[in-house]
């Protein structure tokens, strides 16, 4: 296990149980989560609805408090001011002040980081350019924004402090295909800058495209954890591929394969899609007739 200072996020038996008015256990939303996310990687947090993804993110941000276990973000206890100075968070919907315009929104969040006015004057237009909000959009109130524009300004506020760790909850929701592409490019660009990205998404193709490693949560428990390419390998099937083959050779190869094989053939394991993997895990862990969401106590 890497040292705390080496990891961007580190959790130990992180558990969250929601209780009712009388203090009785109601839902075990997260169950003994042990996870380490390395600095500089793009990490995907996957799971069906109610699997504990949002609970995990809320815990890491200090929005709710763990029932049990510990968590460290950038080597510091969660929720501390020192942590908050170095993280950016894009919630699943853009929960922003709808009466402010784009520029005012970024300036407001910038002030919370005590970014000097001169620096803000430079940084705000730059960020708005990065997320693709034009001059006209910047002056419009957020309540007039489309869903895609709201995601863009949400992302901009998450990046206002040039964070080391960015937590993105469903970042491509509401974006059109071009916007989705741009978002994925931006995530890869952040990775290139050495930043850590925790991505939580239902759009598995997006995760597959950008994530280095993923984990899949199910009913609050961690089911899978590893590099995307490793997890997607189908290890009990062999795939042989080669190129520049004509029909005659193909016939011969078929014959050869039937008898001995060829020297230049590339032999690999075929990969499945992340979607297939995701569905398989969910189905395997769901008993017949049961809901796949977190278990009620």
């Amino acid at each position: 296990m890497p040292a705390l200072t080496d990891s961007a996020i580190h959790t130990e038996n992180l558990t969250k149980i929601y209780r009712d008015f009388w203090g009785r256990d109601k839902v075990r939303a997260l169950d003994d989560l042990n996870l380490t996310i390395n600095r500089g990687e793009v990490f995907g947090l996957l799971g069906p609805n109610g699997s504990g993804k949002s609970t995990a993110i809320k815990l890491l941000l200090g929005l709710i408090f763990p029932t049990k276990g510990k968590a460290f973000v950038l080597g510091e206890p969660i929720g501390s001011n020192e942590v908050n100075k170095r993280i950016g968070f894009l919630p699943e919907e853009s929960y922003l002040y709808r009466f402010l315009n784009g520029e005012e929104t970024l300036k407001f969040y910038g002030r919370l980081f005590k970014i000097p006015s001169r620096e803000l004057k430079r940084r705000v237009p730059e960020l708005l350019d990065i997320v693709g909000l034009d001059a006209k959009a910047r002056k419009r109130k957020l309540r007039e924004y489309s869903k895609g524009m709201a995601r863009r300004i949400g992302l901009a506020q998450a990046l206002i402090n040039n964070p080391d760790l960015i937590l993105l909850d469903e970042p491509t929701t509401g974006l059109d295909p071009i916007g989705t592409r741009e978002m994925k490019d931006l995530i890869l660009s952040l990775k290139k800058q050495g930043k850590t990205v925790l991505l939580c998404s239902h759009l598995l193709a997006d995760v597959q495209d950008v994530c280095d490693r993923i984990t899949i949560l199910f009913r609050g428990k961690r089911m899978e954890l590893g590099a995307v390419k490793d997890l997607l390998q189908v290890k009990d099937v062999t795939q042989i591929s080669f190129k520049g083959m004509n029909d005659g050779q193909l016939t011969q190869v078929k014959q050869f394969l039937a008898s001995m094989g060829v020297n230049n053939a590339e032999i690999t394991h075929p990969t499945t899609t992340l979607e297939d993997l995701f569905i398989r895990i969910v189905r395997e862990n769901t008993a017949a007739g049961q809901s796949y969401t977190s278990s009620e106590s």
Partner: protein
Amino acid sequence: MFVASPIAALPPMIDQYLEWWIGGFIIVFGLFIYGLRDLLIFSPSRVWAISSVCFAESIRKRVLWITPLAILGVILISQFQRPIDEADAVRQMLKVCLFASGVVVTITAVILACTNLPKEIENRVIFTIVTKPITRLEIVFGKVLGFARVSAAILLIMGLFTFGYMYFNSFSLQRGIGQRLETIEAGAAVRPTLEYYRDNGLLTARGLASAQSMRILAREPDSKPGDNFQEAWILGTEGDVLVAFDLPPELLIPPGDATNTPLSAGLVVQVKVGFDARLAPKPVAAPSVLPPTIAAPESQPTGGVADTRIAVSILDQAQETLVPANVMERGQGTQLIDPAGNQPIQLFVDPRSAPNIERWRRVYVSIAGAAPGIAYRIQPDSIKLLIPPAAPGQQPRVIEPAAGMEDWVFRGRFGRVGFQVRGGDAAKEPTHVAVFSFRDAAPSASNTAVPFEFRCDIERSGVDDADEAPTKLSVVVRNIKTGKSSNAVIGDVETNRPIFFKVPAEFLTGGDYDVLLRCTTSGHYLGVSRASLQVVQASQSFAFNLLKSLFVMWLMAILVISVAIFSSTFLSWPIAIVLTLVMLLGHWGVAQLGDALQPGIGNQVATDLGFSSSRPELTVTASKVVDALAKFLTVSAKVLPDISQFASIEDLERGVAVPAVKVRDSLLVLLTFALPLSVLSYVILRNKEVAP
């Protein structure tokens, strides 16, 4: 009114300043211990950023649009007013303007502050705030500041309107006063008041000084200069004198008492009072139609012989009766024989009649004349207490009054408002003179004639045609140092309407002077208190006075905001609004219950409900429950803010300069309640999961 401490077990120092102790504890624990880490990184710029968002939200949601509506309402209501004169018109207009300002700012503050936090949590905007490097302490203070800025904006708009509206209206009203003065004859009683308004304006605020004390006497006091007057006269059945005695327990132990039991041999009140019956009605006059509040002796005069009895009673520190006059008199004569007052009367107080006297460190002895129309003469040696010896051969211990005669309290009969000053011709009938003693109340040097403001209640006897006659007033100012008296100033007075009269400044030189005030109309009574007559020491611009009043209103708005934010940290907004109103009005509400919360109320309620006769055990239970409820309410009131401290409207409405002490008191209430509540809000919010 003195209320017995509800938490008798607490030391007086804590009980008296309970809200300060609780507030201090919350601040020390919440801010300096629990929240020290957040306090150390407290950033005013982040607080300002949060407040700016709150302000922008309110502005962009058009909260300020409520002000034009309020202004429209004020203008509309003003059209329906029917003032009796120009000053009343200004007073009514100002009252509506300030009332509207107060209502608008309070309602806005409650709604904005109660709904803000629950809505931010509900729509999850709080997610993007608390995940930034900002502490919950900064969030709470930012929100309080933000809504305080909104309140300031509302008050600024309303204040500018009030100033313009009042200035415009007073201008035309003052022109009307000038025209009226041209038609009024020179000696008219209303003229000084109108001249005052013409010269000083209707809006100019007056810096007033009240008298240090007020005495209701039957005759004018000695005209010799100085405070140390040697005699005073009180009117039978219409006033008394209260003399304070300090009674440490060791003083109450009878000389020669081996058991050291206070008052074991009783107590003797020795009274030496003279009288003058020249103006007394003959035969004995019928009792006044006005309700007597001074207890009369049990026996009544039989007629024939002039009735010169006195009524002596003992009161506690709160001036509530400990030993009533009829108990004091029982079996002992109180008829005065010597008009010069050299013949003492001794009244023995059996310790069984007054078992609680030794509990009080200070008591008052009240001497009242029991016969109507008789003037009773009080002197410095008029009253003494004697502790009889326990053993023969010992001398009684003499206890002198706690203070000299200049500090004795000469009261009139209680009227509807204050004490009654009986009117009439002093040479022919018993009358009162109210002596207002001003000390260190020099007017500003520039004045050649100094204005006084007087307002009172008027009660009429209902006898003859006195009801129809105007109530006349005669005022003389006597300088203490020089002994010079001014000519009598005559004026007409009406119930609860201020009148003004001027006195040459030479009689006020040095700032120590007595104002002798009489009602010269027979059958009329003035209801006065110490604050009824005030000297106008200085004037202050309306704008500045309005600003002070709005500032006090703004402080109240901040208190409202703090309470509202506190409520909204753990309640949904509709319930938070209810709790906010309960917290703000709680102290006032309990104060309205008054005597209903006195100890012993439980027993009284149980008796009234008829439990005593039917089921005695139920009586005890009901009594305990009611007592516990009364105690709970009294204690609750002590820890809730007293919003009456923020009442500055009345001063402005009366044209009186809002005193600096009012601003200070408002600030103190704010400090005692708003700051601890904000710290509590922070503690709650820090432990609150803001994700729904």
